Every structure is written in C-alpha cells, then in structure tokens.
C-alpha cells in the first residue's frame, strides 16, 4: 500500500498531510510505502500505478469533522488546471496512461489556519491529526467501526 502525504509544512495547517505521513513512516509499518510531497503532480500517476491500494492524506478546509475518510475513484478530467492535481485526477491519469486503477482513499484532516508563512500546526490541527492517526491505524488493522468514517467522493472532497 502507498500512502502519499502532501502539503506545505511552511504554511501552517497545510502541512497536515506531510505531518501525518511522517508520523506513520516513523512507525515503520510493514507493507506500507510512504511518499511525502508538496503537492500531487503528474508523476504520482506512475507511482500509484504500481500500488494495489493508495491513501492520499491532505489538509481539509472548512470541515466540521476532525477528519474525513472515503473511497475515491478516477475522475475529474476537466480539473487538470494547475501544477497540482486532485487525487481523483491522478487516478484518472494512472488509468489513462497505464491502465491501472488501484483501490484508493482520501484522508482529509481538518485544519484551521492556512495561508500564513509559518511553521507548525495549530492546536486544533494537532488534535485532529491525533484522531486521524488513531483512525488510520485501526482501519489498517481492519478494526470495527472504521467504515463509519467512510464517505462518498462528493462528501469527502468539497
């Protein structure tokens, strides 16, 4: 399984994705490959094409929940409009270019402070990171109740 944590840790809570990935990486879990980047770009399509399962971890804006987790599918062909891509668009690229469609999930962790050039997570983001980490570990182990956090595409990615 591939975990991609992305965001800019120099922009407050935008660093939630990398912070999550670094935390999981430090645990040295078997069978889990970690990738950390500023943002999703076209070359991630190649990386995920080789994976059976992919989890995209990113900061989440404007959510009342501490985190949201859900399945995503390839899509968003019309949304390739920036140097950075959405997870669905990366999946679409992997399918289009390499004929691969790994099982994919998005873990959005709610942040509170964005935009300012500043290192470190806000207090709220730290709390949400803890909750998301606990959930993710339980999900990895196939624990009870994790499906309750699963949302549909449209609910997860606003």
């Amino acid at each position, binding site marked *: 399984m591939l975990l991609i944590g992305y965001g*800019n840790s120099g922009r407050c809570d935008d660093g939630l994705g990398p912070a999550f990935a670094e935390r999981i990486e430090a645990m040295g879990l078997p069978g889990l490959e970690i990738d*950390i980047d*500023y943002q999703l*770009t076209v*070359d991630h399509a190649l990386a995920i094409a080789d994976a059976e399962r992919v989890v995209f971890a990113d*900061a989440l804006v404007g959510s009342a929940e501490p985190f949201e987790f859900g399945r995503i599918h390839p899509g968003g062909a019309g*949304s390739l409009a*920036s*140097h950075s891509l959405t997870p669905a668009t990366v999946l679409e690229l992997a399918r289009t270019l390499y004929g691969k469609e790994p099982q994919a999930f998005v873990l959005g962790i709610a942040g509170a402070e964005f935009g300012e050039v500043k290192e470190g997570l806000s207090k709220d983001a730290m709390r949400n990171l803890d909750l998301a980490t606990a959930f993710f570990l339980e999900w990895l182990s196939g624990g009870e109740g994790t499906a309750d956090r699963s949302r549909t595409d449209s609910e997860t990615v606003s």
Partner: protein
Amino acid sequence: MAEPRMIEISPVTRVEGHGKVTIHLDRDNQVDEARLHIVEFRGFERFIRGRLLWEVPVIVQRLCGICPVSHHLAAAKAMDVIWGVDELPPTAEKMRRLMHYGQVMQSHVLHFFHLAAPDLLFGFGAPAEKRNIFEVIKENPELGRRAVMMRKFGQEIIEATAGKKIHGTGAIPGGINRNLPIDTRDAFIKTIEDMVSWSQDALALARGYSLEHAELVDNFASFPSNFMSLVRAGDGALDLYHGNLRALDSQGDVIFDQLDYRDYHENIVEDVRSWSYMKFPYIRDIGPETGWYRVGPLARMNTASFIDTPLADTALKDFKSVTNGAPNNAALNNHWARMIEVLHCVEKIRDLLHDPDLQGTDLQARGHRREEGIGVIEAPRGNLIHHYQVDDKDQVTYCNLIVSTTHNNDAMNKAVKDVAVKHLSGHEQITEGMLNHVEVAIRAYDPCLSCATHALGQMPLQVELFDADGALIDSRAQAA
C-alpha cells in the same frame, strides 16, 4: 446601451497561488482597463529574519512547492558569499548544477505537456472540457507517458543531488553535502539518451506550433520590451546557474552587460502600485514607464549569445533566425524557448554524468566570513534574486527576494491588456473561451504567484461581473 461592467476571474487557473484578473468594460463593451492582481506572500521576508544562515537554504524551500530547488540554490549562493567563498570546489558546483538542470527540465516539461499543450493543440477558444491533458493523451498516449517519465527523471536527479524530493539539504553554505555515487550515476546514464531523444521531439513539437501558427503567435500578447537574464561571464553564453546580468532593449541594443549581480539594487528599482501586492521592478536608468523588462525562457533566448551544448545551440540559431537575430517579442514563443532549454538541460546532465568530478570528495570551502550575501540564478520562470544580511550570531537581519514572477509583473499586465482588447472588446457576451484567451497569455509566463497552499476544497475558478458602482451583478464558477 449596456452599463459599464467589470469582469473578474479569480483565481486564475493553471497558475499557482492566488491571482485574479479584472477587466473593466465601458458602456460600449470596449475594454477600458485590464489588470492581473496578485496576492503575494508578504510575510516571507519576515519569516526568514532571525533564522540561522546555515538553515536558510533549507527553509526557503517552503516558499514554493513548484520550484523549491531554485530557492534552495539561490539562497545557498547567497550564503556562499557570507561564508566567504567566491569559488566552490568543482564537485560542489557541478552537483549543484546537476540539481538545477534537473529542476529546470522537469518544471518546463510539466508546464509544456500538461498545462500548455491542451491550449496549443485544441485552440484557446475550444470548449473547456476539451482543453485538458486527457484529451491530449487520447490523441497521443505515448506523448503523455514520455512527459511523465521526463518529469520523473528530473525529480530523481533532484533527489540524488539534494538528498530528498522535498526540503532537500544538498546545497550548504560553501558547497554541497554529498557527491553522486557511481551506481546512481549509472542508473541515470541508462536513460539519458532517451531523455535527449524525447527532448528533441518535444522541441520539434513546440517549434512546429510556433511556425505553423505564426500569425497567431506574432499577434497574441506580443509587444516590444526589454529583456534581462544572467549570461555566462565573459562570452555571454546561456548560463542558468551563474554569471552576470545582461539587459537588452527591444531592438537588441545593450542596456547593461556583464553587470555583477551583487549590484542589482543599484540598477533595478522595485516600484509599488496601490492595486497589487506584487511589486513592479524596472531598470533604474530608463525609469518606470519604459524600464520594465521580461525574464524567463524567451528573455534568455534573446539575451544569450549562444548555448554551450551543440543540439540546443543549433536550436537557438534556428529560433533567432525567425526574427533575423532581433529580440523575439511573442509571449507564446516562451513555449518554444522552454523546449530549447529542456534540450540544453538534458545535454548538460549527460555531460555531467560522465564527469568524474561528481564523485569527488572535496565538497565544501570556507573563507573569511562576511555580513552580506546576494545569490542569483536563472530559475525555470526566470531570474531569481536572494539577498541577505546576517549579524555576528549568524542570524538573518535582512532579506529581500525578487522572484521571476515579480520581474514579469508589468509584462503580464500588458499581456492581459493586449489580449483583452483584441479578444473581448466589442462583445456583449463574454464566453469562457474568451476568458481563456486572457489566461493563456498569463500562463505563457508560467507564473508562480504564491505556491502550494492547495488543501482540499480550494482552487475553484470564479468569474464575477460588477457594475460601474462595484456591485456584483453576475457570477459563475467552473471546476478549476
């Protein structure tokens, strides 16, 4: 008769960060004024103050998720000066150059294939659902796969030289902290010839577009301007990593040449205007009205006397022949220029991979410490200036950055105005295709406005119409 109105595009798609375009129409639907507004990160210089000099090359990478290596290297060059080092050990300079060529290559490839190609292949006014890379891939899947592999190659060069894909630590004050292991080198050598070949194909594609659409290219956001870049000391060759400043006017006459970049602040003034956070630099001796200039790939093709790699030099001669050696003013030719630079970078990478200095062990120099340092490189988008002062505790007390997009601020605004007047004036209905023409003009400069805050839920494209009193009368949004 229609009321005067203002069209607002916010933010601009396929441009990083937060920018918006406002277009003011008069009562006859003629474009009265068109501007690109920037919300730039104003806090960055403050963020750097108080940092220790040795950590600055790492910390500045947080400025930009698109070209962090450019900031890493510009800051390292400035810190070399403070470290008292005027000449790096050969291994250090060549490792840094390798890193830089990898960065420029992958950045240009990403821009050309994935951001510009849909506009170029399907037309600026094509339906939005047609203008995306998936439609390009449908017509030429091999092109899409090559673009991903070229981008990946550049990223791997960065990782091998900087240590990590992001927040690299390779460049340190006075040198580099690693060399290139033989097995890593050999892995790159296995694929470098593919990169050369694919770069030539990409160049042919870009060149073909410019020549086959010469009338459009010559009249789309094309205007005379000054141009500025680094060129190699002495012979004026293209040099993306180091050199002196050269500025030419629209006729190709020299404004200044072989100017020591440490004197940039005596020759470049950063003007401020009330309606934009981003400054407007101009050449002091000419003044703000006509002293603005362009930087970036097109500017570099205009300023460089030649290119010191054979394939790219042949391409440069071909490029210059189109204008009989005079400066090329067409913004869309930035794409052609970009692909010449990709070929140049790949040729340079190939040369470096066969240079035994990359396995050298003399990695860092040290001299008499200074209190001030200025580092300049040619980033993918153009000239990038980092300027620092430090105190006796090695803490930064002053920081000034002029990034490529800031250098191009005036030029991008003129491009927006030019395209808006030609393509929007006289129309009662403003279509998405017309608005895209404006964005194409901006994207030709590949601006990086304020990078990498991209959390889920951001980046829609909003178009808003305002009446003469500034009241919102209409708006629409589309997927970004």
